[in-house]
């Protein structure tokens, strides 16, 4: 199903999308659009990193904001309190996020059941609280102010974020399509069978969470250098939920779809600003409609259908495969949930 022809179409599609995103602020000038696109691209990094771990393995992470927050605060501390140059933030944020991923993953990802999802959720909530409790160091509700920008020009900074998004997506999509990704999908299917196939599932789950966290933290650091401040709000559960929603709209488990979902929902939020207080309601209704009528998401299934048509290769209908898979997984969960 992953013929070279499809791969070429994927590549062409990615390049066209990237080119449009890069050129857009040159066509419609003004700081407003650059700002919107920058935040949308950062959400893209967060969503794609969420999907790599949770979309592929089915272990839903309800506290992605934990990694975002620690990445952003690492950038804040490094840059203001410890006086490092702003570029140091990026590797440092990735490293700290990975450490948090290992702390969260080791005890919870070995277990079956909802422990991982719950631990991530509470981890994010606890960190948000800790930022307030240790206000003398963290600045409490105010957070850390006066962070240096990475690049003076907002447009250049946007292009930097876009480049990071493109590189992250390329890396994670390649990993997802390698044997690593095959193992993650197998873990999603049946952990016991993976063990019987000789796969060290604990290693793959924890390592994938670490990779996911690294890019979430990187996005957090970029966000800190965009806002030029950090606040405990970064750890908010609503951020994690927004990211999960973006991935759902993008099409779970496709990895690249998450980017589309993030851009789509970010832009929709902005376009709906004119509706004032109706905005949230319209946004929610559109979301419910998408999730109800397109349970496999919007971006990835549409792209797959388009790709099939472009390749003019009837073959196995690629677009329906994820639907089949989801149905089968649902059946397996409902019917064959017997213990080893």
């Amino acid at each position, binding site marked *: 199903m992953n013929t070279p022809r499809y791969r070429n179409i994927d590549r062409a599609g990615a390049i066209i999308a990237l080119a449009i995103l890069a050129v857009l602020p040159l066509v419609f000038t003004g700081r407003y659009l650059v700002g919107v696109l920058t935040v949308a691209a950062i959400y893209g990094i967060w969503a794609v990193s969420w999907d790599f771990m949770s979309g592929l393995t089915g272990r839903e992470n309800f506290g992605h904001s934990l990694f975002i927050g620690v990445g952003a605060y690492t950038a804040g501390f490094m840059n203001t309190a410890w006086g490092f140059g702003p570029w140091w933030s990026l590797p440092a944020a990735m490293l700290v996020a990975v450490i948090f991923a290992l702390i969260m993953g080791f005890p919870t990802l070995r277990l079956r059941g909802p422990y991982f999802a719950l631990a991530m959720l509470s981890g994010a909530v606890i960190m948000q609280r800790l930022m307030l409790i240790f206000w003398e160091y963290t600045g409490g509700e105010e957070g850390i102010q006066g962070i240096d920008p990475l690049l003076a020009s907002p447009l250049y900074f946007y292009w930097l974020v876009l480049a990071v998004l493109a590189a992250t997506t390329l890396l994670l999509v390649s990993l997802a399509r390698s*044997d690593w990704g*095959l*193992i993650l999908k197998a873990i999603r*299917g049946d952990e016991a*069978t993976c063990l*019987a*196939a000789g*796969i060290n599932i604990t290693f793959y789950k924890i390592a994938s969470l670490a990779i996911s966290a690294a890019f979430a933290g990187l996005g957090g650091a970029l966000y800190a250098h965009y806002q030029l401040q950090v606040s405990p709000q970064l750890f908010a559960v609503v951020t994690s939920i927004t990211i999960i929603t973006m991935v759902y709209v993008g099409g779970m488990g496709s990895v690249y779809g998450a980017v589309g979902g993030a851009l789509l929902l970010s832009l929709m939020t902005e376009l709906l600003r004119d509706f004032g207080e109706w905005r949230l309601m319209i946004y929610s209704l559109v979301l419910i409609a998408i999730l109800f009528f397109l349970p496999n998401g919007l971006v990835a299934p549409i792209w797959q259908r388009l790709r099939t048509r472009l390749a003019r290769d009837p073959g*196995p209908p690629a677009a329906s*495969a994820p639907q089949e898979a989801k149905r089968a997984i649902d059946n397996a969960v409902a019917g064959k949930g017997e213990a080893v």
Partner: protein
Amino acid sequence: MTLLSVKDLDKHFGGLHAVKHVSIEVARGEVVGILGPNGAGKTTLYNLLTGFIPADSGEILFNGHALRGVRPHRIVGMGIARTFQLCRPFVGMSVLENVRVGSLGPRVPAGDLDARARGLLGDVGLAGKEDVPSERLSYGDQRRLEIARALATEPELLLLDEPFAGLGSGEIDELSVLIRRLHQDKGLTILLIEHKLREFMKLVSRIIAIDFGEVIATGTPAEIVANPRVIEAYIGRQEVGHAA
């Protein structure tokens, strides 16, 4: 030469003594059947051997290595593969990908894993179905896929758990031929749990009969069918037998 040696293996589930001081020996190249009524502890024995559940006490030696406390994927890495009673293909993956996953462990040298998987699919009679989504296979084909995935880990010992369950008689004959070939051509040592006795008796050279977690008899198929304790475990005592 002994490949697998189990000594005094014991397992409780709460108040249930599921496996009672079981000791068995399996020589390299043997096909050994494990016989026993439902709930006798056969699958539990498999789960203990493969590290899926920890034993309370006892010893498992495979190729001279102690297996107790070793994690399941490492036991696969040492050369023991298993299939499950219910087929468990990786849904959303093609038949070929299912087998490929089996070859991603440490035992299999790097190389053209797809070609290797194709070869194994040919061996089990699934040639031409490589790209089919695994969940669309018939139940009989899913069994073959299970076996191909187990073979992909390059095992020395294969544990089959009721491979004939849910299959039609034609499928059972074909699968019997396959199991026999795995033994004869590939030199695999095989442990077999099965309730379809006619086929079972033809496949195995030796039988270990288990009831209530205990080994009640071992011997050739002919010896086992004549063993009074086995008959009792299977059809009850004689006087009860003709009352029913």
